[in-house]
């Protein structure tokens, strides 16, 4: 017994009032997810959204799907475990730029390699929003704050580039201020069989008020599916940093999952026991 579908996008919202600040880009991400899911006709109970900690990490509870709000940095391992245990579910992982590219960066690299059929949405605001304004791995080198008074002074993490270098099979960037394009990208990412990175430029008007200008600066569709991984990397390097679009899509094996019908366990146990005979 599953839910009647299709639902309208609004029906994918839980109705819980977000903790987000007015104008936060994450509202656009929330909207885009609902608009991605609705036309796919996915029953809400078959979708699970797993997140870490951060403003971004609050998103699962605002969706009418299943959700898992776990630890800072650990959304991807949880999502991987879930997907391998329950391959029939649509699993989305969501996190912030700190969550995924800083404390979670090992999991990010290895999820790209492992290729579980998960869509990862990174809500990139180039700041630690939840902890009130420290630099994140995507912050500009000169983003000055008390913690780093002269700015991080190092190259920001380029999420799509890191994903490509790590072997990801789907890489895209979207903008929360363009929820329709973003919905299309997320839908393609969900449809993609394998690990899909959707980095979303999602402004933080509270701690990065200058990001309200992104609306004018974003180059929608400037990233286009590349023919080779080298070409994809070159494109990401060459494109303006606020470019959006899908830049890479490839087919790769999926990791082994739990199978739905387990074998006759009793007999198998007896087989194993026989192996212990001296």
């Amino acid at each position: 017994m599953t839910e009647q579908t299709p639902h309208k996008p609004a029906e994918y919202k839980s109705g819980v009032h977000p903790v987000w600040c007015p104008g936060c880009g994450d509202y656009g991400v929330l909207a885009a997810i609902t608009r991605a899911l609705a036309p796919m006709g996915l029953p809400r109970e078959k979708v699970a959204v797993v997140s870490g900690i951060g403003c971004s990490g609050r998103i699962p509870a605002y969706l009418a799907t299943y959700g898992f709000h776990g630890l800072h940095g650990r959304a991807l391992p949880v999502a991987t475990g879930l997907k391998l245990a329950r391959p029939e579910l649509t699993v989305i992982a969501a996190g912030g730029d700190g969550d995924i590219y800083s404390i979670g960066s090992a999991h990010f690299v290895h999820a790209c390699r492992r290729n579980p059929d998960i869509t990862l949405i990174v809500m990139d605001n180039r700041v630690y929003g939840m902890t009130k304004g420290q630099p994140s791995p995507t912050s500009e080198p000169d983003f000055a704050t008390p913690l780093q008074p002269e700015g991080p002074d190092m190259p920001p993490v380029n999420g799509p580039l890191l994903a490509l270098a790590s072997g990801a099979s789907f890489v895209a960037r979207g903008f929360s201020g363009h929820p329709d394009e973003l919905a299309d990208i997320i839908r393609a990412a969900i449809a993609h069989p394998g690990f899909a990175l959707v980095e979303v430029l999602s402004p933080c008007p509270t701690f990065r008020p200058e990001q309200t200008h992104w609306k004018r600066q974003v180059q929608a569709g400037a990233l286009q599916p590349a023919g080779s991984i080298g070409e994809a990397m070159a494109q990401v390097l060459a494109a303006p940093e606020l470019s959006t679009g899908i830049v890479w899509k490839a087919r790769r094996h999926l990791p082994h999952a739990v199978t739905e019908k387990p074998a006759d366990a009793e007999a198998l146990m007896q087989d194993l026991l026989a192996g212990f005979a001296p």
Partner: protein
Amino acid sequence: MPKTTSRETISLALTGSGGAGMLTAGDLLLRAAARNGLYGLLTRSVGPQIRGGESAALLRIAHYPLETHDDAFHVLFAADWKNFDRFAGEIHLDEDVLVIMDEHAREVPETVENTTGEVCRLPLQATAKRTGGRVNMVGVGFLGRLLGMTPDELAAVIRWFFSRKGRERFIESSIAAMKAGFDLAAPHVKTGALLAPPSAKERAAAKNRWLMSGNQAVAMGFLQAGGRFVAGYPITPATDMLEWLGPRLPKFGGALVQAEDELAAINMVLGASWGGVPAMTATSGPGLSLMAEGIGLGVAAEIPALIVDVQRIGPSTGIPTKSEQGDLNLALHAAHGDAPHLVLAPDCVTDCIRTTAWALHLAEKLQCPAIVLSDQKLGQMHSIIDAINLPPWKARRKLRERCEGDYARYRITPDGVSPMALPGVPGCMHTVDGLEHAENALPSSRVEDHAAQLDKRRRKLFRMEDWPDEEMAHWAEVQGGGEVAVLTWGSAAGPAREAVRMAAEEGLHARHISMRLLFPPQKKRLSRLLDGVKRLVVVEQTHSGQFYHYLKSWFDLPEVVISCRRPGPRPITPRQVLRALREACRISEHESERVCQ
């Protein structure tokens, strides 16, 4: 040479440097013993060299089930003495030890030089060379004869061992070397073998025995209870459990993931388990430290999870290949905040099957992480055990199968357990959270919600004190009686049980309690088991007395409590416990809380 030429139990140490194959020799002798219906166990001690370093096979054979090594070794077979001092401290020689060494060996270690036993210099290498076999096979023949085995029996295990692709060519030369070793042993069995020969009945029982390691037994317990997902990161001495499961789990429809680290492993387990699939990770101390945060999430979000810690010597990287019980403190207190969770410990190889299955059962029933504390000794001990009926416990969760808008994931219930709706169940959608939450799982920082959820999470565990005794029968095991008791957990049970038997032979009546459920504390249950006990000896393999301090913090104990502890790698032995018992009977009641080390 042992005083009694024919004994009920005998201990042999086989040592040698790289490539001497002492571990193989030990394996073969253990298997031959098993086939003869004897009991036995084999542990290995290796040096730091990755491959080809010195190693020791420590073998004990007996006519009764064994859980532990004896205090001393009656026979030492040394292919050479290279770096012997690295584990000399772990191999205590009997005063009547029989030492077999090569005639040309030099630099005999001090302990051997000074032994009151018999030292035989024999042409071991020469014999190996002559027969075209290796010195370990000479050892198999020599020691096999001391143990009362026949050349045919020994040849059979040699054949079994080499009957793997590409290795058959070693069979004949190995058998020749074995036979030559057998012949060399003739002078030592003039008055019969050192071990009493197995009876026909014993021989017949051989088919009801298993040769198993504790790590395999834990894996069996997990599979038996319905475990189907494993995520792990290699670490000594837990890796072989993961490697054993690797090819087997898929047959059960399960999946195993080699995670990028332990943080990933525990979080993958939580993800899979939240999806409804009973899940486990296996690790050792350093990995458990890294999993602390994940375990806390399991507690807060109420997700079942099995974390097996095959303890090795700490602190830090410590001594990865050797055994200690030093992770108890961390296991009890892992994770910040008030994060009560289950902690259990199997107390022998056989029990690894049972306690693991029970732990998974409890974790699922109580929607809570369970840490199972095994150790290197149990985990890597190869042991001949009686075949048992697999335990009945299964992973079964209180589920919510449908909802009508009324679902509250963290509903306050009398028993503290809230029915769980798995992803996929229509109408019950919700988001679980490691943030404190209201009953409906939404984050809440209200005083009342925090208090209610803390109460509930504690209650579901602490209610176990009130469960019917039948359901809790496995929590601990008591044996013997009297006013003096030994209390142990985990692998320390083996020497303690043997000590209590030895004490009884001396007319000293004592009881032994082995605690398998360490947390939540079963205060009333322990008090009942301690009823009438005046002096308690707490035995553990730690330096600081972690178990002793834990007991003091939660339980009502007799007036005199003696902490008897020893760090690794020298194992706790039956006689060490026996000495503590004897002492406990002597000391006055005013000397409470003595420490014997």
